[in-house]
């Protein structure tokens, strides 16, 4: 708790006071935390292995064995291409793995979200109350504003969509952001005070 208080207060002080030694300490601390967190990197591998092994223990079929081995094959593919080729993670070999698998799956995950957003709206966008109508108005009008066909044939949808976004959305969003920020600050102050229960529980 003392370490948290000292490091935290130093960082806050560096924000308020432009004193060179304090800024120096801030620079050192921020570079240290990058190293500390990066050094914990293998921890993830340990937990990945624990849960993979447990899943295999539960179901010792050949198919499950294939599922269990698969992550390690791709793990090795990535690691070898980063370590064995000149340029490391900038090598064309690593970029091949990165682009075709990592980036590509990432882009597809975003694509899938269209469908989940659509089905959730089918379920919840019902004109059942003032609040629901407000939700639908904010959602549907701005959606139509972004579709070229509606921009052409219902031109007034463009200013109306923009208005929803820039006026009521801004007002509501601002209030919500301020409320959440205050709550975050209170947790922060309590943490530096040494009274954050979560950290006490976790030792």
């Amino acid at each position, binding site marked *: 708790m003392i370490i948290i208080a000292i490091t935290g207060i130093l960082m*806050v002080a560096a924000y308020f006071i432009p004193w060179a030694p304090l800024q120096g300490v801030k620079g050192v601390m921020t570079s240290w935390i990058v190293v500390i967190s990066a050094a914990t990197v293998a921890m993830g591998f340990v*937990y990945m292995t624990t849960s993979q092994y*447990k899943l295999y223990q539960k179901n010792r079929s050949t198919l499950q064995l294939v599922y269990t081995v698969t992550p390690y094959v791709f793990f090795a593919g990535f690691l070898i291409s980063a370590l064995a080729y000149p340029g490391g993670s900038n090598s064309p070999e690593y970029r091949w793995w990165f682009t075709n698998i990592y980036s590509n799956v990432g882009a597809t995950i975003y694509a899938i979200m269209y469908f989940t957003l659509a089905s959730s709206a089918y379920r919840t966008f019902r004109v059942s109350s003032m609040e629901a109508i407000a939700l639908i108005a904010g959602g549907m009008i701005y959606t139509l504003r972004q579709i070229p066909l509606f921009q052409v044939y219902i031109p007034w949808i463009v200013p109306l969509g923009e208005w929803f976004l820039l006026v009521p959305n801004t007002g509501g969003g601002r209030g*919500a952001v301020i409320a959440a920020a205050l*709550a975050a600050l*209170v947790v922060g102050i309590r943490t530096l005070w040494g009274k954050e229960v979560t950290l006490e529980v976790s030792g």
Partner: protein
Amino acid sequence: MLLGILADGTLQPLILLAVLTAATYVYNKKAYAGEIKADQLREIPAIAAITEGVGKSVEENKPVHYAMGASGGQLYSQLVSMTLVALAFLNYIAKLCAKYEAQLIVHMPYQAESIPLIEAMVREGYKAEGKQEAFQPSCLRYYGQGALSWTQAVTASYDQEGVGLNLSIGIFYSDCPISLEMAKIKGALNVGGTGRWIMVYAFAMMCDYVFLGQEIYVAGAIISENPLMLAGVWIEDLGKFYSLLLLGVGLIVGLLGVSAAAALFAL
């Protein structure tokens, strides 16, 4: 003297920080004196839904899933408070699962540095119910860097292992609509929330019970049953009062001219 050593534009932030710190001191004292109680707060229905969801999971013999976001283990970013709240909920859900003997699956975020805290919260939850032996490290799942593998793996877990209650609290980015909607489709009781306003819509539309924005912090205080955390809710409300006051002063000063208002906020 003080103004001389302050960086430009930090007087207003300093006053706000001082107000909140002083309020922390006063309300902590009240908390120790036993004057702060959860029943003085506005009700948040989603809290009761968590216990209901654990009961549902036991009845259906399906696991309880806890997710704090693919990138929900941030310890040294501006979102650290949300990580801490998510850990408080994790401790709570671990206690409930230990108490009602429900199976718990924790989908860990990719930040490996948060794993020690996550494991400690779950262990402590089981210990608090006197059931340390029921804790299984394999309930903590890790899926590597980024949202893509996390989203896929969490969805696969709902599908393959079943889902009774899905509790999602913490830092969520654009990835959460998939996991939330899939849990819903697989028959989960979906409960959750995030402090990131831009993503709250996903929770509002996909959850059966939602914590809207700041409500996760308030609910975190209520479930902790800790007077100091509850005192935090009063401090937050005082902060809102101060903010509205500042807004009012800004509006009055603005009558003197836009530049006067701009100068006030630039302090």
